[in-house]
Each structure stands twice: as structure tokens, then as C-alpha cells.
């Protein structure tokens, strides 16, 4: 029986991992412009180059003869040590790094991905939505009259209470915010800072 339980446990965590991965992929920001540019450049440069090489083999020209001749002469007179070659090298390096960063950086369009157990369902909430839901939970605490919530690296909640309210009033506010976070189940875990502000 113990063996079955362990198998179930591992099966569940594998499903959760798969669900997490699929949700991240689903809400990953698309890099359409960059992909279109690179794919088009590859198709155009490769196509024209291959066609020109084939045409030359059979005694024809695809690209005007003067253009290729000008390029040929230019490359013959250009030295490797020329500053323009160095500039071209750095430009290529910059373009390569931009593409690498576009490929690696997640870029989740201001969405909070939600935890789930089913890989066939991906869910997300807007970051603004998370902020509002937490503000609503904080306002549900009787003594809290106003609230300010910030969602960044940390979740910062400042509840405004009447002057003279004891500092212990922070505890129900903290519990309400944590309970709402437990309901929403965002994938990203952030530290939660709850403070009280006095009014009146």
C-alpha cells in the first residue's frame, strides 16, 4: 500500500510540474516580430545567394553584374584591421545578444500564472486583478477603512485604520490577505508585507 501511495505522490507532482510548464509556455509573450524578421532574412538572403551562385555556374546573373563587381572590389581593398570591420563585428554581436535575450527572457505580459493540477488547463489572472482581489480581502476586515496594495517583488499591503486602533489589528488583516492568496494560488511566491496606517 505504501508503494501505491508513493507512486500516486510522484504521479501527482509530475502532473503539477507538467501543468506549470504548459501554463508558462501558454502565457509566454510571443516574439512574433523578431521571429518574422529572422525567418524572412534567412529565406531572402539564403534564397538570393543560392540562386545567384547557381546562375553564375551556368553563365547568367541574377543580381546585376555591376553590384557584385563593386562588392568584389570593395572586399579586395578592405583590410581586416579596418575600423568598419570592427564596427560590423560589434553590430553582429549586439544583434546576436538581442536575439538571445529575446529567446531567454520570459516576458509574461503582466499576468499572474495560477497553480493547477491539470496540464490540459492553463489559467492566469491580470496583476491588476490580483492587486484588487487582495485589496477587497483587506477591506473585508471590520476595522480596515482603506487599503493600498502593491504587487511587485513583494506584496505590500497597507491597511488604514482609525487612530487609536491597537497594533494587534494587523493580525486579522495579515490572515485575510494570506487566505485570499491561498484561494487564488498564484504560481509565483512572494513575501507578503502587511502594515497598518492610522487615519483621523
Amino acid at each position: 500500500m505504501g508503494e501505491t501511495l508513493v507512486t500516486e505522490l510522484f504521479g501527482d507532482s509530475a502532473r503539477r510540474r507538467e501543468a506549470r510548464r504548459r501554463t508558462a509556455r501558454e502565457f509566454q509573450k510571443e516574439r512574433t516580430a523578431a521571429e518574422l524578421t529572422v525567418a524572412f532574412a534567412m529565406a531572402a538572403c539564403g534564397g538570393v545567394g543560392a540562386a545567384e551562385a547557381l546562375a553564375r555556374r551556368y553563365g547568367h546573373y541574377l543580381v546585376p553584374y555591376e553590384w557584385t563587381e563593386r562588392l568584389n572590389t570593395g572586399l579586395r581593398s578592405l583590410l581586416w584591421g579596418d575600423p568598419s570591420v570592427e564596427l560590423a563585428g560589434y553590430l553582429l554581436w549586439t544583434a546576436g545578444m538581442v536575439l538571445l535575450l529575446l529567446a531567454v527572457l520570459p516576458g509574461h505580459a503582466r499576468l499572474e500564472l495560477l497553480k493547477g493540477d491539470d496540464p490540459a488547463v492553463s489559467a492566469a489572472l491580470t496583476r491588476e486583478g490580483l492587486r484588487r482581489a487582495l485589496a477587497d480581502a483587506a477591506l473585508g476586515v471590520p476595522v480596515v477603512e482603506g487599503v493600498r496594495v502593491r504587487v511587485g517583488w513583494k506584496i505590500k499591503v497597507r491597511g488604514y485604520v482609525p487612530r487609536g486602533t491597537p497594533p494587534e489589528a494587523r493580525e486579522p488583516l495579515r490572515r485575510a490577505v494570506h487566505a485570499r492568496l491561498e484561494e487564488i494560488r498564484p504560481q509565483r511566491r512572494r513575501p507578503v508585507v502587511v502594515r497598518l496606517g492610522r487615519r483621523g
Partner: protein
Amino acid sequence: MARRGLALAGLALCATSGAVLAMNRFLGGRAVLGEGTSDFIAGHVWFWPVVTALLAMTAVLGVCWLLAQGRAAALRRLTLLGGRRKALTNEAVAALTREVMGMPGVHDVRVRFTGTRSRPRVMLQILCHESADLGLLLTRIGEDSLVRFREVIEMPDLHAVLRFRLVYQETRIA
């Protein structure tokens, strides 16, 4: 896949830039297209066929990538179903919309079915009240509504994407 393509293109550009900068540093006095290069090309008959093959391969990869992007965009935006199945799916989408609208805390919902029979996808944009229990909603939609939806349209591999937004109630926030 697409991001892997971008990463490979980026790596290729960085490697080329490394080669160019190394030449710039160590072979500064030589011409980019010197006598040595011309002699090498003239002495090896395989040079131009290999260059042509590499260029053709690059062009084919580029065209395949463009086609793959077009296909992915179409699958995400269009319903590529025909006849009876399309009608069945439309009915099921209407029923799913009604069902989700009836759930507690839901203010509005938009359901969109896209893709083909072999790669189906359903997108739900759900507008909720601030106090809605999103965890409960997600569980009910995922474990009840979508299970029924998959059965009705006979697509067990359907992938569902849910986007929650909350109704704005300005007066309640300090």
C-alpha cells in the same frame, strides 16, 4: 520551438561576430578577400557547390519557419473545423458560456474555440467580481464544465486557457 530558433540565430550571429573580431585583431594587415582566398576557391572545385547547398538550406529553413509561424497563428486565432462538427462545437460553446455565467462571482465570460480537431484549444476570458473565489471557480470550470465540454465535442485532448480579470470598483480602493 520558435524561441529555440531565435536562440540558435542569436548564437550563430555571436559566433560570426567573434570570428570577425578575431580576424580584425590578428589579421589586421590582410585584405578581406585576398589572393590566398581566391587561390583557395580556384583550387577546390567543391567550394561553390557546398556554399550553394548551405545557402539553399538556410533559405529552406527560413521558409519552413515562416510557414510554421503562419500555421501557429492560424491555429490560435481561427476555427478550422467543418460542417456538422462546427455546428456541434458552436452549440457546446454557447452552453459552456451559459454555464460559466451562472457561477458565483462571474460578471461576464467570452469563450472562443480555435484550432483543428487534432489540435483543439478553447480560450475563456472571464470577468469576475473582486470578491470571487478564483480557486473555486478554476476548480469548477476545470473539473466539471470543461470535462463535459470535451465529452460533448468529442475532443478529449482539448487544451483550455483561462484568463481572469476583475471588475473595477473604484470607490472601494483607497
